[in-house]
């Protein structure tokens, strides 16, 4: 997910004036909720989730951008924290002292892109962008996929993460035509294609059941390499679109696999995949909008996985990104891939 280039639809909630209360995004409360997250050190949960800190900042910052309050977290503070997680090999850990990992390296690159911080990276580390790109590239396996770290767990999530981060850094082979390629793109896309199933969906590895999270990462990967349209074709898009559209349940929410519960985070993965293949009109957007808004905590801010559940920053960003993609007034536009 990245914020669309160019001016968004405003933000700040001005355009929401006409909506009934239950259809309004409580912008100020979400901003306050996100700002409060780093001040909760007296809660055990804060310490138990330190292994997610950088991703948490990425989710929070993206949410703030969507809400039209990009400066609600201080840029200097974010950058200082980010660089305190950077290792000499170019990888980022989740927090200071945590080992480097693909997931947090990608979150860091996404944060740097969002706050226009690549120059700062170069200042703090000589050839920093190249070093980070090389850390990511170094995790590619002979079969084209990517490991999360030196310990070797592979997953199509990491493959998408790698392509996404390299593209933001400007180090995809297609962006560096005069240089020897850092990664083997054909091997990576061949692996993605091998993860596709008869139902049009994708799994975590060849042979695994289709899952909407993996559909998102695989479509995202093919979209970054520019092959999504030609690879799927209209028939492929119809098949995948049908599988994705069946994720919508009568509540309006979307689930991740057949016969599972709806969840705001799946709403995002399903919906953005549908947008990438031009099939977003195959679900009921009004009902989905209403479902996501029911997951909002109108008192304290934040979104939960389902109505009435505890909010968290992860579901908050996916809820807001979903609403943005659905064209809800008052939010900045988002890019599905």
């Amino acid at each position, binding site marked *: 997910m990245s914020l669309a280039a160019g001016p968004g639809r405003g933000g700040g909630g001005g355009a929401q004036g006409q909506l009934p209360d239950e259809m309004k995004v409580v912008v100020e409360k979400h901003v306050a909720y996100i700002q409060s997250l780093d001040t909760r050190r007296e809660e055990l949960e804060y310490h138990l989730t330190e*292994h997610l800190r950088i991703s948490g900042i990425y989710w929070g910052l993206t949410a703030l951008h969507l809400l039209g309050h990009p400066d609600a977290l201080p840029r200097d503070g974010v950058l200082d924290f980010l660089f305190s997680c950077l290792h000499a090999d170019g990888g980022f850990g989740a927090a200071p002292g945590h*080992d480097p990992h693909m997931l947090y390296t990608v979150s860091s690159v996404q944060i740097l892109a969002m706050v226009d911080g690549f120059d700062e990276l170069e200042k703090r580390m000589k050839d920093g962008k190249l070093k980070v790109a090389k850390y990511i590239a170094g995790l590619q396996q002979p079969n084209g996929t990517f490991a999360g770290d030196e310990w070797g767990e592979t997953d199509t999530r990491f493959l998408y993460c790698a392509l996404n981060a390299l593209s933001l850094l400007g180090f995809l082979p297609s962006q560096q035509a005069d240089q020897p390629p850092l990664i083997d793109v054909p091997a990576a896309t061949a692996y993605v294609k091998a993860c596709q199933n*008869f139902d049009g969906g994708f799994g975590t590895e060849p042979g695994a*059941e289709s899952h909407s999270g993996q559909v998102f990462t695989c479509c995202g990967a093919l979209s970054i390499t520019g092959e999504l349209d030609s690879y799927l074709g209209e028939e492929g898009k*119809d098949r995948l679109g049908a599988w994705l559209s069946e994720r*919508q349940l009568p509540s309006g929410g979307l689930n991740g696999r057949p*016969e599972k519960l709806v969840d705001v985070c799946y709403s995002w993965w399903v919906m953005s995949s549908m947008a990438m293949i031009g099939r977003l009109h195959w679900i009921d957007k009004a009902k989905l909008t209403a479902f996501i808004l029911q997951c909002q905590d109108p008192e304290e801010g934040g979104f939960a996985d389902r109505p009435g*559940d505890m909010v968290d920053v992860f579901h908050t960003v996916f809820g807001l990104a979903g609403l943005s993609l659905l064209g809800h007034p008052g939010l900045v536009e988002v890019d599905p891939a």
Partner: protein
Amino acid sequence: MASHGIPRVSGTLVDKSEQAKEKERRQIERYKAAEAEVIDRIRVKDYSATTLQATSTLLAQNPEYYTIWNHRRLVLQDAIAKEPTRTQPDDDIDAADLTAARLANQTPAQHQIALLLTEDLAFLLPLLKQYPKCYWIWNHRAWLLATATQHLPTSSAVTLWQGEMGLVTKMLGMDSRNFHGWGYRRTAVAALEGLSGGDVSLVEPEFEYTTKMIRANLSNFSAWHNRGRLIPRLLVERQASSEDRRKLFDAEFELITTALYTDPYDQSLWFYHQYLMSTLDTGNKHSVSILEPCTHGDRVRYLEQEIESIREMLDGAEDCKYIYQALLEYSMRYLEMEVEAGNQKVTTAERKGWLEELRKIDPLREGRWNDLESKMKL
């Protein structure tokens, strides 16, 4: 930071009593102390049993802390690396262990490694039970098994992997859709087949396993999915004749049709039906083949048979959207098969009627039905 299914208490920032705050402060202190203990020891490369125990304490409280799993592996790697240098059995290894090693065809060093890894596998069991969806636990388990395969005699690795099959069967018994569980099961199967050097195939028992899982709960798409994945290899290994293949194909249709009669509102079943039908579809890049050869006549015949059979399902289930979806999808493919107009088993009026019903029952996907209408050129 990412929670699922935890009810919201009115106002998450409710004022806690001083007593509760104090309790939480102490919990945080204990947690930070346990964390510092591991980190300080690893910083000075103390890879002792005490450090291993310190990681256990911390991971039992927070199995999502991936860096600590990495630290744990450093300790284990160090212990493993030291074993082969121990040429003479020393005081650490008692006579019973030596006998056990000999019986298992292991060197004393291998026996110690096996004990170490087995102990770690046992440490993970209660954690997996408590956090069955935690990536890092499954990840560590896979690492232990890969390490065992690398260092131990094949027979010992096979024994360990067989234990994993037992474990994953138990896990899937508790949550039959667990994504990690099914993935790990495929890994275990591949490992056992690989370790046998190609002598052992688990395709038949795995196929049986999906039958068992489906019988227990029809709605288990994970099992249906795995079944569909196994069939092509099953047929090759059975050296199935074209007649055998047709028999299996027919048996699968019978199985799924019975299931559909039990619950036509279950998506999982319709996806398996789609899977069977996809094997007749030359336009699907990811379909497998069951019938061999599969002639034009076969395709027409099976499409007619299934359209007819699904049409009958409508009786008593007129409000079931999946039936209309299937009828429309399969009839579209059927009409592309260039069946002579006079012999066609589906009429345009009928297709229009199905689409109308579908629009009524399933307004959520109205946009899709509009596109389908133009695609069918009705």
